[in-house]
C-alpha cells in the first residue's frame, strides 16, 4: 500500500479504470485519495452534501478482492464517482438540496447510478445543487451554496454546481448531474470541464427526482470528452421503469470518437452572437470556429431566430411540469411535515408543510406553473408555449438539414459573482443558449474553450456543440477533435486547503 500511495495517480476515468483493472494501483488507494481530497479541500467549496467514506472504502476493498480473484469488474473498475443530490441511492440520503427532503432515504437506486455501479464505479457522495435542480448558480440551496474552484467569490453555475465544482477541483474524476435547461452544460462551462446533456430518452430517468419530466436528462461531468462519452454510453439503454426511455440498441460512442472532423459541416448561427455575450466568450467561440475550419470542417451559416423565444417557452412549460411533479410533497408520506396549531386542518397541513419545506425559488416556480395551468390562463400560456415548442423543434430540424452539429457558446458569460443575478428573470436569461436543447429534446455538450482573464482570475469559458436527437456519436467526435487541438481541459484551478475569498457568502446553517 505505502508504495502505491506515493505514486501519482492517473487523472481520467479511463486511465484510472485501466490502472485498477491491471492492478497497477488498488481501488482502495484511488478511492482513499479522492476521499482525502474532499476532506482537505471541500471545506472551501462545499461541493458535497454527504460523503460515503465507509461505504466507498468497503466497496473499493470488494472490487480489489474481485480483481484479485480474477473477475472482470467492468470498464469503471474502482473509479470514484459523485452523484448530484437528486439522483437516488438505496444508501445515504437524497435531499435535492431541500428542507422538504432533508432526511429522505430512498428505498431504491436510480437506474443510471446502478449502471455505473454495475460497471465497477464507486459512489463516493452526493453533491450540492440548486433546490430541486431549479437555478443556474447553486445559490438556491437549503444547506448553503457551492463555490467556484477557479474563484470562490463566484458561483459554479447550476443547478448541478456541486458536481461541476467537485470534478473541476479534482476531488473525483467524474460526477453525474441532471440537465433540464442547461444544468449540466452551464456549470461545466463555468467550471472548465466537460458536461453532457444526452438526447431526451437516452438515459433512464428512473430515480432522478422529477422537475420537468419532458425536459430532464441525467448527464455526466468529466475532465475529458472520452470519459464523458464512456459514462454516457454505460448509462444508455432501455429501462422498463421509464416508459420515455428509448428502446434502441446500446450505442457505441467510442469507436469513431477520434475520426477527423474533415468533411463535417458545422453550423454557426448569428443568434448565438447576442449582445449579452461577454467579449471573452465571443472571442473564444470565434477562435473555436477558426480552429474547426483549419481542422477541415466546413462552417455553414444557419438560422435559429427562435433562440430568443426559448426562455419564454421554457419558463412556461417547465414550471407547469414542476408544479405538477412537486405536488407529491404534501407532508403526509415522506418529507417535512409542519406542526399544526389548534383549529388547523388538512389544507393547513399541506400549505404549511410546503411553505416551510420549499425555498423561495422552488415556490416561485410552483406559483408560476400553477398560474399558467390555471383555469383561464391555460390557453394563453401553456398551450401557446407547447406550440412554440414545436416551432423550436422544427427550426432545429431545418438547421440539421444543413449541418451535422451546431457550434456556439454554452453561456453568455464566464462565472458571475454571488448575488449578481438577484432578479429571477435575469437569472433565467443566463440559460439562453442551453434551454432550447431540452425543449427540442436533442443532445448537447459543453467543453473547455478558453478563459476570461478580465477579472484578474482566469475564469473558464465553455463551447457548446449540439447535435440532433440520438446523434451523440457525432457530438462526441466534434468535441473530441477540438479537445485534441487545444489544452484548455488540462488547466486546473489553483486550490489550497481552506482557501475561500473574503467576499464569498457564508454557508447558511
Amino acid at each position, binding site marked *: 500500500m505505502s508504495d502505491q500511495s506515493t505514486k501519482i495517480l492517473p487523472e481520467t476515468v479511463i486511465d484510472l479504470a485501466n490502472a485498477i483493472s491491471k492492478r497497477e494501483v488498488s481501488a482502495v488507494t484511488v478511492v482513499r485519495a479522492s476521499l482525502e481530497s474532499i476532506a482537505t479541500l471541500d471545506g472551501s467549496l462545499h461541493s458535497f452534501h454527504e460523503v460515503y467514506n465507509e461505504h466507498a472504502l468497503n466497496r473499493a476493498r470488494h472490487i480489489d478482492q474481485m480483481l484479485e480473484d480474477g473477475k472482470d469488474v467492468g470498464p469503471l473498475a474502482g473509479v470514484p464517482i459523485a452523484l448530484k443530490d437528486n439522483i437516488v441511492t438505496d444508501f445515504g440520503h437524497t435531499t435535492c438540496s431541500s428542507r422538504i427532503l432533508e432526511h429522505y432515504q430512498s428505498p431504491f437506486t436510480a437506474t443510471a447510478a446502478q449502471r455505473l455501479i454495475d460497471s465497477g464505479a464507486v459512489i463516493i457522495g452526493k453533491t450540492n445543487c440548486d433546490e430541486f435542480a431549479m437555478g443556474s448558480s447553486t445559490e438556491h440551496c437549503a444547506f448553503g451554496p457551492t463555490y467556484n474552484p477557479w474563484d470562490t467569490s463566484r458561483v459554479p453555475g447550476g443547478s448541478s454546481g456541486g458536481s461541476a465544482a467537485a470534478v473541476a477541483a479534482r476531488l473525483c474524476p467524474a460526477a453525474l448531474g441532471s440537465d433540464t435547461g442547461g444544468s449540466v452544460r452551464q456549470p461545466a462551462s463555468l467550471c472548465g470541464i466537460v458536461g453532457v446533456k444526452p438526447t431526451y430518452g437516452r438515459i433512464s430517468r428512473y430515480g432522478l427526482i422529477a422537475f420537468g419530466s419532458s425536459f430532464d436528462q441525467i448527464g455526466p461531468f468529466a475532465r475529458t470528452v472520452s470519459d464523458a462519452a464512456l459514462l454516457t454510453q454505460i448509462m444508455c439503454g432501455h429501462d422498463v421503469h421509464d416508459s420515455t426511455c428509448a428502446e434502441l440498441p446500446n450505442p457505441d460512442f467510442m469507436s469513431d470518437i477520434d475520426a477527423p472532423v474533415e468533411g463535417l459541416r458545422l453550423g454557426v448561427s448569428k443568434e448565438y452572437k447576442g449582445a449579452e455575450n461577454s467579449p471573452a466568450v465571443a472571442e473564444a467561440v470565434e477562435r473555436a470556429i477558426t480552429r474547426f475550419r483549419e481542422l477541415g470542417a466546413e462552417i455553414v451559416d444557419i438560422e435559429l431566430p427562435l433562440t430568443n423565444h426559448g426562455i*419564454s417557452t421554457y419558463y412556461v412549460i417547465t414550471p407547469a411540469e414542476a408544479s405538477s411533479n412537486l405536488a407529491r410533497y404534501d407532508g403526509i408520506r415522506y418529507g417535512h411535515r409542519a406542526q399544526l396549531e389548534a383549529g388547523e386542518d388538512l389544507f393547513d397541513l399541506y400549505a404549511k408543510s*410546503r411553505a416551510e419545506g420549499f425555498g423561495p425559488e422552488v415556490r416561485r416556480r410552483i406559483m408560476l406553473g400553477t398560474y399558467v395551468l390555471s383555469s383561464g390562463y391555460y390557453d394563453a400560456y401553456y398551450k401557446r408555449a407547447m406550440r412554440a415548442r414545436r416551432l423550436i423543434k422544427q427550426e432545429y430540424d431545418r438547421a440539421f438539414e444543413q449541418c451535422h452539429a451546431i457550434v456556439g457558446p454554452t453561456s453568455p458569460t464566464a462565472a458571475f459573482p454571488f448575488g449578481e443575478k438577484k432578479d429571477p428573470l435575469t437569472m433565467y436569461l443566463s440559460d439562453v443558449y442551453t434551454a432550447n436543447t431540452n425543449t427540442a429534446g436533442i443532445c448537447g455538450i459543453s467543453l473547455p474553450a478558453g478563459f476570461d482573464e478580465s477579472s484578474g482570475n482566469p475564469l473558464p469559458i465553455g463551447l457548446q456543440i449540439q447535435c440532433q436527437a440520438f446523434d451523440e456519436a457525432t457530438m462526441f467526435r466534434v468535441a473530441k477533435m477540438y479537445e485534441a487541438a487545444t489544452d484548455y481541459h488540462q488547466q486546473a484551478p489553483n486550490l489550497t486547503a481552506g482557501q475561500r475569498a473574503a467576499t464569498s457568502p457564508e454557508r447558511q446553517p
Partner: protein
Amino acid sequence: MTDTLTLDDVRHVAKLARLRLTDAELEEYRVQLSSILKHIDQLNQLDLEHVESMPRPMDTTNRFDEDEIKPSMPLDMLLSNAPHVEDRYLAVPKVLGNGGGA
C-alpha cells in the same frame, strides 16, 4: 404600465398550489411573476394558430405490463420515511366533518 397580476390573483394561485405565504411574500411574488409573465408575452409575436402542440420531445406510445402480482415495497421501508406514524399507519389530521377543505 400595469402589472399582469393583482394581489388577489397571487393569493388565489398560492391557494391552488397549497402554499401558505405571508402578505410580504405574496407581494414579492406578484412583482416578480408579473415581470416574468411580461417577458413570456413575447410568445404573442409568434404565429401559432396552425401549429400542433408538442407535449414531449419524442413520440411514445403506451406500453402495458402483464397484469400480474409483484412484490410491493416493504411496509417498514415505506414507513421509515414517514413524518408521523401511529401503529403501522400514516397519521393525518381529521379529514371528515370540520377537518375537510383540503
